[in-house]
């Protein structure tokens, strides 16, 4: 798909729509580039962090004398030493005015609330000497009882922060009756309880660890007029703001650079204790310093993702038409309210109703603190949780009604002729075609053939059963309309900024406020600008990630860069063309109204006279012959604030084979048809979809952060935190339908998170579908072979196999019954 414009027959083929390989990849893949840890400054010192081994303790004494005497050590700082200048790690999104947020000091002074928290910093001549000395810092802790389980935290018997008096951070509600976007949920539930269908389930979103490839690293040089920080971050602009807001350094005295950054997945959408501690030490010593974490430190200190209990009540009529959904969420924030932290589950509030027309809806959230690593955005952030819940529920409803799960979806989804459609949650979806995506996916999947094979395997009692999982997802991305963020009490806007500089020699510099960390923005933005300005792809340079070069920006997360950031670039390009037209008209001795711009040339209507964009740029640079009074510049800036989110959707179909003898699940086939509107670079999109799929599949099958009862992270390395590799996945079949977004001129929708949001329920639905005949209706994620096997055993042990009550009701007054726990085996 391309943006269609009238082009002369001899014009070059449009860049938009080309599967270009990424111009930035050679240096990124070979590592011969500016990773933060590659940066060396003269006289630079190296830091090592001393971290609490305890989940919850007070610090009674720290003896740094031995460490200070260790070889190569320049200084050792405790939180006490740094407290005047170290600032604080703030949350940008207190979800309610009443939210309780404990102070999160970069280096703890008297209290640690999770294992891995920093208690002292060693600065030495080499990283090895710093590490050696860190072992010599002697910290006396008085251990406190730790609260490590979300449901225990809700009881307020053990407090993560005794000074808060409660573990509850905040509560938040969206009610369709209250806000006038739908009916009363309690009425719908009461009606369904009488004569309809009520599906009541509790699902668990396990804790995940964003496993970006490049560990986090920060270099600070305090010796210039501006303090310069290089950091492996997704959010250099947000980081600069937070430093200015809390350390006493004026914003104008801070330069933050995100050089090449090796992945983030939300894990670097943070302002970290390590960044603030590094800055504080550099300022104390007036020397450049570097801190690069080990992977073990990433695991305990980098923020984690997900971690929710979801209590769900779905009301429907007997025929499967859904009348209401009530969501009661418990979310674990870990020890502190992180940058977005408490707002992540809120982002799910508009997505539990997904693509469906529910008459009533209510979303209730309570955020809790525990003595575990803090939790924040992880690829999808709020929407995967919501999508998982509703897509699992739709399968359960189909089982209850006794129809194909695609049929139950079709009965409830918004049809293509109903767009734009305002949902029961109050969100207006501009475009989409769920029927088209589903039809294409079914065909690519061979849906009917696989259903026939499933039936045959069931009838022959094959030890390997086949299951088909469906996920007809949508999501909201492109964060975000600033007014909506304001209404949600978020601390910043959601606009994006761009500048275009037309250089004298014909090349173009594009400055973007987003901050790529592996997405390929340099390539995609170059394609867009090449088409817009009619210059060769190679002549476009995309600059970003440095607050001196790109002074304004809101950075990269929430699948926003293309739909918000690139739209700002398009608007800047339009301004460049408008300015250049004036110069061209002057040089061609024509009226501006008669100038036409096409394929890089300004022509005069009805003549063969023309002048190229580079010629106009050169003429502007010399300034020798410009219209009277014209400022000698055709450069332009633009800031774009979207009117709405973008709403990608798609139909994902997954076939899983389940070995009922061992519980092992093997993926047989995966088809996804995603509608992300128009596509700039199909190859980059393919990469985003594949990577997203694997991350979502990994939540379903492999990943999960586990703690012991002391609050120590058991999955503290990649030996135990089982990330998949390409050897564990299959070739996916991907395709697209095209319903352009109406909120940006390129017609694009975000794709960065889509695969990760959609795939998790598709996989779990497939596994449950494979073993439903054994009386199984849920398996906790990750669906380990042991959990699957035990679920089958438990199902088989119940008389009347397959005939069990498929809808156990929540008892009155018992908030969370944890029905999945029985299948969990020995794992806490």
């Amino acid at each position: 798909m391309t943006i269609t414009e009238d082009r002369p027959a001899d014009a070059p083929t449009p860049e938009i729509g080309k599967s270009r390989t990424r111009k930035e990849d050679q240096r990124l893949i070979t590592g011969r580039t500016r990773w933060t840890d590659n940066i060396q400054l003269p006289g630079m010192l190296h830091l090592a962090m001393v971290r609490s081994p305890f989940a919850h303790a007070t610090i009674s004494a720290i003896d740094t004398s031995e460490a200070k005497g260790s070889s190569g050590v320049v200084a050792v700082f405790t939180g006490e030493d740094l407290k005047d200048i170290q600032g604080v790690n703030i949350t940008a999104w207190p979800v309610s005015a009443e939210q309780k947020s404990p102070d999160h000091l970069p280096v703890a002074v008297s209290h640690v609330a999770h294992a891995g928290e920093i208690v002292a910093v060693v600065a030495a001549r080499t990283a090895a000497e710093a590490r050696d000395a860190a072992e010599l810092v002697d910290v006396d802790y008085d251990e406190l009882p730790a609260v490590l389980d979300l449901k225990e935290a809700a009881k307020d018997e053990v407090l993560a922060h005794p000074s808060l008096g409660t573990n509850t951070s905040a509560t938040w509600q969206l009610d369709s009756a209250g806000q006038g976007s739908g009916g009363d949920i309690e009425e719908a539930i009461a009606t369904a309880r009488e004569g309809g269908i009520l599906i009541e389930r509790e699902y668990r979103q396990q804790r995940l660890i964003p496993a970006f490839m490049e560990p986090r690293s920060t270099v600070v040089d305090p010796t210039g007029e501006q303090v310069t920080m290089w950091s492996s971050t997704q959010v250099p602009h947000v980081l600069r703001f937070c430093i200015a807001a809390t350390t006493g350094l004026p914003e104008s005295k801070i330069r933050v650079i995100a050089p090449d950054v090796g992945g983030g997945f939300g894990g670097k959408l943070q302002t970290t204790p390590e960044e603030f501690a590094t800055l504080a030490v550099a300022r104390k010593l007036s020397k450049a310093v570097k801190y690069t974490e080990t992977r073990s430190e990433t695991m305990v200190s980098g923020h984690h993702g997900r971690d929710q209990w979801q209590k769900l009540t779905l009301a429907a009529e007997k025929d499967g038409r859904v009348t209401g959904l009530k969501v009661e969420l418990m979310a674990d924030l870990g020890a502190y309210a992180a940058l977005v932290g408490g707002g992540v589950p809120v982002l799910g509030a508009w997505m539990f109703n997904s693509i469906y027309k529910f008459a009533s809806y209510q979303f209730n959230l309570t955020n809790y603190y525990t003595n575990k690593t803090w939790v924040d955005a992880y690829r999808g952030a709020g929407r995967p949780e919501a999508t998982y819940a509703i897509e699992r529920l739709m399968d359960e409803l189909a089982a209850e009604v006794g129809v194909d799960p695609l049929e139950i979806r079709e009965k409830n989804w918004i049809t293509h002729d109903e767009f734009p459609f305002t949902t029961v949650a109050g969100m207006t979806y501009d475009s989409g075609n769920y029927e088209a995506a589903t039809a294409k996916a079914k065909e690519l999947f061979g849906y009917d053939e696989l259903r026939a094979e499933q039936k045959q395997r069931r009838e022959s009692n094959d030890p390997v059963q086949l299951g088909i999982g469906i996920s007809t997802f949508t999501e909201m991305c492109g964060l975000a309309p600033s007014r909506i963020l304001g209404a949600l009490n978020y601390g910043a806007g959601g606009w994006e900024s761009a500048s275009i500089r037309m250089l004298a020699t014909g090349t173009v510099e594009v400055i973007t406020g987003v901050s790529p960390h592996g997405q390929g923005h340099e390539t995609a933005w170059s394609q867009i600008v090449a088409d817009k300005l009619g210059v060769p792809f190679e002549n476009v340079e995309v600059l970003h990630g440095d607050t001196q070069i790109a002074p304004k920006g809101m950075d990269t997360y929430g699948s926003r860069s293309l739909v918000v950031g690139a739209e700002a670039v398009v608007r800047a390009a339009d301004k460049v063309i408008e300015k250049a037209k004036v110069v061209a008209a002057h040089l061609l001795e024509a009226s501006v109204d008669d100038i036409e711009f096409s394929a890089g040339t300004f022509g005069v209507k009805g003549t063969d006279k023309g002048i190229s964009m580079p010629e106009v740029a050169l003429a502007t640079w010399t300034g020798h012959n410009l219209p009277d009074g014209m400022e000698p510049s055709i450069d332009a800036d633009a800031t774009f604030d979207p009117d709405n989110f973008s709403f990608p959707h798609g139909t994902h179909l997954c076939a899983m084979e389940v070995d009922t003898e061992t519980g092992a699940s093997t993926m047989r086939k995966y088809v996804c048809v995603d509608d992300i509107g128009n596509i700039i670079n199909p190859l980059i999109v393919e990469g985003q979809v594949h990577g997203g799929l694997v991350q979502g599949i990994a939540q379903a099958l492999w990943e999960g952060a586990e703690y012991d009862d002391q609050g120590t992270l058991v999955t503290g390395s990649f030996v135990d935190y089982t990330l998949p590799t390409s050897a564990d996945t299959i070739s996916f079949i991907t395709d697209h339908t095209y319903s352009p977004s109406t909120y940006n001129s390129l017609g694009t929708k975000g794709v960065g998170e889509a695969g990760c949001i959609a795939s998790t329920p598709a996989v779990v639905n497939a596994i449950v579908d494979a073993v439903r005949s054994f009386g199984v209706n849920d398996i906790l994620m990750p669906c380990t072979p042991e959990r699957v096997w035990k679920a089958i055993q438990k199902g088989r042990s119940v008389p009347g196999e397959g005939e069990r009550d498929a809808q156990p009701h929540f008892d009155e007054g018992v908030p969370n019954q944890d029905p999945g726990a029985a299948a969990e085996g020995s794992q806490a």
Partner: protein
Amino acid sequence: MIPAQFDYLAPTSVADAVAALAEHGDDAKVLAGGQSLLPILRMRLNAPGVVIDLGRIPELQGVSEDGDHLVIGAMTTYAAVLASEAVTTHAALLSKAIATVADPQIRHRGTIGGALVHADPAGDVGAPALALGAELVIAGADGSTRTVAAEDFFEDLFATAVGEGELLTQIRIPKHTGWGAHYEKFVRVSHQWSIVGVAATVRSEGGSIAEARVGLTNMGSTPLRARSVEEALVGQPATDEAVRAAVASVTDGTNPPSDLNGDADYRKHLATVLTRRAVLAAAGA
């Protein structure tokens, strides 16, 4: 990930290596392929004063034949063992097990001797070594060597018959030419340590099993040999039913761990299923 400081020695002969061990005693750690030792050092779980690298000792490398035995140098990498036609021909079980170890990078660094002496019960080399009746040649401080049967080699979790001041130098494997073999490894992700593994090799005669050897990975603190299963299989046809019955006793005497990948009872169940599958596959059924 920076280890504590250590001195590094790289002897070029077994005699020099043993002499270095004698000199540094407890303070020394032997580096083979480094696939277990280096993470341990980098995470500072151990901080030896001296690391003795065996990587420059030619006599510890390579596969050769000695009559009815294969002789594999302790420092032969997994990849080199896999590339050896002699191993594929005469000890197919070892090839099949090693092919499942971790990932290609690790197989090009890790060594068979290093894995055996490290003696992680979840490692994939111990069970085939046991099943094939391997003999382990150990060099001592006084220049002597002694040979220990695999069954006496594994003493406990991470503990073997290789004593202080000693080095494993060779693995001698009786040829099992013509035996069918299969290693059934159960993992959640491909590069993982075995949750359970079963090494089975079978000599078939006239459609039934004449001899069988079965080793178990991660079903106790050491690799284990399932002798009762081996005996029960003799004379049985390679059918699902017969093998199912013969392997029923496979968990006798096992004591598997419980961890995030599965509790002990689940592992016992797995061992039963996997042994049946391994034996049937080894028998070509």
